[in-house]
């Protein structure tokens, strides 16, 4: 390489910097223009209009909080009343997360480059995962409710299928970042594919699996609550009944919202505790030299 003088390097670098700054300015202007233009278009197509509707945005929460506040002494009774359906909802979510997570784990190992036992199957299996993610849970649930009748099982299957698609993809991204050195080490001693995956890959990535799995659990609680709206049982069914305007049951709706909120908080706190335990081992003071 030819020796460049310092001033030549300075001039070259400044030219690069100037080019980057011009590009950034153009991108910023385009971004702002697109945002403003897109907003105008969307607002024109909206039935009610954004600015007209904006002041009414808080009407529903205000009604809910108002009714709940005026009958606050009834709240704890509602908590007990809706606890069984909450447990049903959590049950649907837990079973579907567990089943979907296990299937997703197997799928993820089959679609990770460098780990997959049958490399040519990676593409087709990834498309399968894409399909599972693309079809909305509510559509699968409606079809299954039509075939199997209403109840928690169709909802569980619908959410589990979506979970396979979602966790399969996330787990395979985690697998890609796993070091292949332990896998090679196990291969050198003559271990089979399942042994290599079970002993070489999964211990490395288990904390990440757990954190994605628990995040999915949270999402699935919400999903199973929504499926209650279409007849899959659980707390969603009660929420639909209490939420309809003009029934004067907003205080019960508020109790259900609070139950869901506390559930999510509990799951979140438990998951961060478990994740810390798994990544750092049990609580022991670490010493920095």
């Amino acid at each position, binding site marked *: *390489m030819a*020796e*460049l003088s*310092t001033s030549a*390097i*300075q001039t*070259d*670098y*400044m030219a*690069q*910097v100037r080019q*980057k*700054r011009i590009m*950034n300015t153009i991108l910023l202007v385009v971004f702002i223009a697109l945002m403003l233009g897109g907003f105008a278009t969307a607002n024109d197509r909206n039935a009610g209009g954004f600015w007209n509707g904006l002041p009414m945005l808080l009407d529903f929460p205000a009604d809910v909080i108002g009714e709940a506040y005026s009958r606050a002494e009834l709240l704890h009774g509602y908590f007990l009343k809706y606890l069984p359906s909450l447990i049903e909802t959590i049950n649907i979510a837990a079973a579907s997360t567990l089943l979907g997570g296990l299937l997703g784990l197997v799928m993820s190992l089959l679609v990770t480059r460098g780990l997959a036992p049958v490399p040519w199957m990676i593409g087709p299996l990834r498309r399968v995962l894409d399909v599972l993610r693309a079809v909305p849970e509510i559509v699968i649930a409606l079809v299954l409710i039509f075939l199997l009748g209403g109840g928690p099982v169709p909802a569980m299957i619908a959410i589990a299928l979506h979970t396979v698609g979602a966790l399969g993809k996330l787990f395979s991204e985690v697998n890609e970042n796993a070091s292949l050195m332990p896998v090679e080490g196990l291969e050198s001693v003559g271990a089979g594919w399942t042994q290599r995956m079970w002993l070489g890959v999964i211990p490395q990535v288990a904390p990440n699996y757990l954190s994605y799995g628990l995040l999915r659990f949270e999402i699935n609680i919400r999903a199973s609550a929504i499926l209650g709206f279409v007849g899959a049982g659980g707390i969603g069914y009660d929420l639909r009944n209490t939420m309809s305007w003009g029934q004067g049951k907003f205080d019960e709706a508020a109790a259900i919202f609070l139950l869901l909120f506390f559930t999510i908080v509990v799951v979140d706190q438990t998951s961060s505790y478990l994740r810390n335990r798994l990544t750092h081992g049990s609580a022991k*003071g*670490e*010493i*920095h*030299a």
Partner: protein
Amino acid sequence: MLEIENLTKAFGQNKAVDAANIVVDKPVMIGIIGRSGAGKSTLLRTLNRLTDATSGAIMFEGQDVTQLRGAAKRNWQSQCAMIFQQFNLVPRMDVVSNVLHGTLNRRSTFTTMFNLYPTEDIHRAIEILDRLGIAEHAPKRAEALSGGQQQRVAIARALMQDPKIILADEPIASLDPLNAQVVMQSLRDIHEQDGRMVIANLHTLDTARRYCDRVIGMHAGRIVFDGTPDQLTTGAARDIYGADETFSEAATSTQIETLNEEVAKLANIAESV
């Protein structure tokens, strides 16, 4: 200039630094030696305020820097540059941007987010890189450089801070002997030409002897030696490393010449038996 008074840093029951007292009255080059876990890193990290001290004071030009908070603390950190064993650069950014990070304390968050550094700063960054002999790598990503080159980028970032003190935490522990020599010589040149105080943690005795004006030995959090390289006898070194009479200075060496001597000595022994 710099006075460390009874500085203690405890992690639970364990005292990483135990009542350290150091007085430095003029800018010199200091080497801190000791085995791993002796508290060398913690001492430097407390000086830079990356770690908070448990008790004691660090007086610099009449001010106790352990008491600084917020902007005053960040201002102190900008005057007291740190060089790390693993370089701690931003790997995906180019070399000049990494050097310009040395000016972050003086710039607003907004301008640095959009990389709007003044032209004179960019020119100065490239001049510093040129002084360290790596100007031709200026537009490359930091991760594309070798370890020795990355460490020199880290030194350039430190110089960009225009600091009063440069702290170097095992600057050559991840480098091969030749690059180690280049990096240590750069630190020595910075000390001699700019008159900046340099404090370096080193794990080899001969590096400390060769480049430093003053050597401080630490053992289990305590300062057990403080003097000139000449005063550092083999006996003193054994105390610092907690070693017995089989300890020889060359065993801690990464210097090519001393290693060769050691190999030759071993060969002689092998021949005689």
